[in-house]
């Protein structure tokens, strides 16, 4: 695939109560944002097991976004607090093995923030586009494994 044909693939895990509603609102309000994002609805940002993120990258995602309710607004009271700590640690680990920080982002977007959702996606796609295809976790089919 030539560089020109390449389009960033972003996997977005959106919490059902806020960020998914924000995506809905963005659509209803006709805010435009790039079509590079694949949305996966989760009940809460704390449902996002770090393994989901790793798997998304392993399956070829160029960026992963996790979005949930603002702190204090979680439908399950404190789910996003748990998510915050866990995903912060995951970010440190991914950066340690050489991933560019912009590829894995966490945002708090409420159901009323359709514009913020569109803006977040736009910014993320722009950043990942500049970085190019994700090279970490890429298949290296070398005959000298082991």
């Amino acid at each position, binding site marked *: 695939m030539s560089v020109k044909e390449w389009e960033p693939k972003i996997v977005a895990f959106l919490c059902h109560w806020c960020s998914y509603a924000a995506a809905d609102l963005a659509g209803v309000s006709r805010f435009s944002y790039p079509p590079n994002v694949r949305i996966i609805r989760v009940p809460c940002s704390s449902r996002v097991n770090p393994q989901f993120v790793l798997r998304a990258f392993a399956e070829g995602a160029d960026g992963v976004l996790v979005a949930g309710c603002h702190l204090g607004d979680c439908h399950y009271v404190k789910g996003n607090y748990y998510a915050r700590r866990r995903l912060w640690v995951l970010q440190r680990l991914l950066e340690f093995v050489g991933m560019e920080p912009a590829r894995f982002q966490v945002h708090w977007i409420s159901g009323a923030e359709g514009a913020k959702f569109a803006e977040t996606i736009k910014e993320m796609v722009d950043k990942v586009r500049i970085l190019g295809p994700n090279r970490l976790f890429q298949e290296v089919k070398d*005959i*000298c*494994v082991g």
Partner: protein
Amino acid sequence: MDYRVITQEKLPLFLSALRQSFLLAAPVEEEGEVYFRLLEDPSQVYLGPRPSRVPPKIFFFPPTEPLLRYRREGEKWEVFSAEQDPRPLILFGLRPCDLQSLKALDAVFLASPPDPYYAARRENTLLLGISCPEVGPGCFCVTYGYSPTTSEGADLHFTLLGKFYLVEVLTPRGKKLVQDYASFFAGETAGALEAKQSKEASLLAKFVAPPQLTGVKEKLPSLYHDPYWEELAWRCLGCGICTFLCPTCHCFDIFDRGEEEGERLRCWDTCLFKEFTLHTSGHNPRASLSARLRNRFYHKLLYHYERYGVEGCVGCGRCVVFCPVNIDIREVMVEVRRRGSSGF
């Protein structure tokens, strides 16, 4: 058999020349340990006493072998054959035990009907053996009736004698290689054969009490229910080191990777993992670690021979040296001879 010699200085030049027309892999040091790698700089070849950690079976039976690719278009499935690198490969620096191990693998993969993937890789690869400079702490090749200088199985075999290598030309393909690169070799081998023999004798003298093979196969069947395996398994971690680093272990699993589009892969598997024998019903005939560990030793010491008429262990010592809890197949052989009875 034909003989040549090559000087120590010319060997890297010969390897450089080979790199022009072949893929060339050889043992190199990576972070202090020895692995087979595609050779970028022939001066990097590791010629020291340690064998490669991961055996050269990776070149014939890779840890992951794509068997075919598939893609779904609506209701139709398209299937494509998997491609292998067509460039001819030369493996330099195979130890006598590595060469022997190919006999065991050939028996499995080349028996009728031959495995096309393995057969193609074997066909596409030239084997350049090298005699061991030392006897390692885990080595017991003599148990299997060959020595650290045995050239059997190679196309060319190198033995360092002072400042030059004796090169044994063992196959027509080896002969062609020597002819194509004739400028690196000299034909004058006076005294070299004798020198190799005395080198072999001095290496053989370094083996301290290698395990004896007599009686092991005969006695093993009587020990199937012996508590020895249970006690041995207390220490075993149940990891796959001994099987994955074994140059003759060849078990695999086949599965598809990808749903709408992907590859059918054949991957290394090991009898030490409990999923290895797990049935669809949920029953597991080797549910305990001791049963799995026992199976490994029976396979290495008995089953492989019974089935193929070729030894399933070559005495390379990798499982001995790299087992984190020192489960030693040599010790197992001694115990089998001590505890077992023949004529069961």
